[in-house]
């Protein structure tokens, strides 16, 4: 993932702050997927984006808590889940 490209997208004309922040958070989430949560690439991007958007700190916490949920398998469909809800998967 190219940081310059993301910065170009963030500073594109006719974008609102909300749109730029969305680009920042999505890019940060993607780079964590691509290189690993604590990778140098992800940390570098976070440092740059957090300078521009103070909200990045909160969003990083949100993503950390989501990843903790993934690690616990909270969002996976396990055998018996549907049956326990009375919904048989045919």
């Amino acid at each position, binding site marked *: 993932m190219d940081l310059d490209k993301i910065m170009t997208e963030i500073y594109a004309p006719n974008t609102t702050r909300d749109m730029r*922040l969305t680009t920042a958070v*999505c890019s940060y989430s993607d780079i964590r997927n691509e290189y690993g949560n604590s990778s140098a690439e992800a940390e570098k991007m976070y440092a740059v984006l957090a300078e521009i958007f103070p909200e990045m700190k909160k*969003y990083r916490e*949100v993503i950390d808590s*989501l990843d903790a*949920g*993934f690690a616990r398998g909270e*969002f996976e469909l396990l055998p018996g889940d*549907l049956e326990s809800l*009375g919904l048989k998967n045919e």
Partner: protein
Amino acid sequence: MNNNSSLSKALDHFQTADHLFHITFPVSKDPKLLLGIVKSISNCLEYTIEAILTKEKLTAPEGLLKKINAVRPLAVKHHLSNDDIVFMLRIHEILHLQKQSPMEFKRGNTHIICSDDYDLEIVSTKDVEEFLQRTKKILHSIKSA
């Protein structure tokens, strides 16, 4: 619109949702699609409720939430459980939150809808599979009634 026409449209939307989930999603792997599936499920539920209301010779109001409220007094008669009503409200809630949300992003196989207060609505493949199965059950029960 008569009862059969509403049910036929409900079935169309269900088939769209089912196709998107079982055929398109495994190829595209884009969690954003999960929201599209939820929207199709919402359309399906709207037409299903409309079929019930038409059968009862009542006018169907606009929007899923108003339709859910209109069908509530008839729920037992039409074999809709409390869990079915709660499920329909959850579908409405997800789409409502999405409209209000300043931030959405994907994480793993999930689509995250984040509120202004950083409250999260997480739509996962597990959720959507459950939504589809429950919708199928409701549709089947209304069709065979």
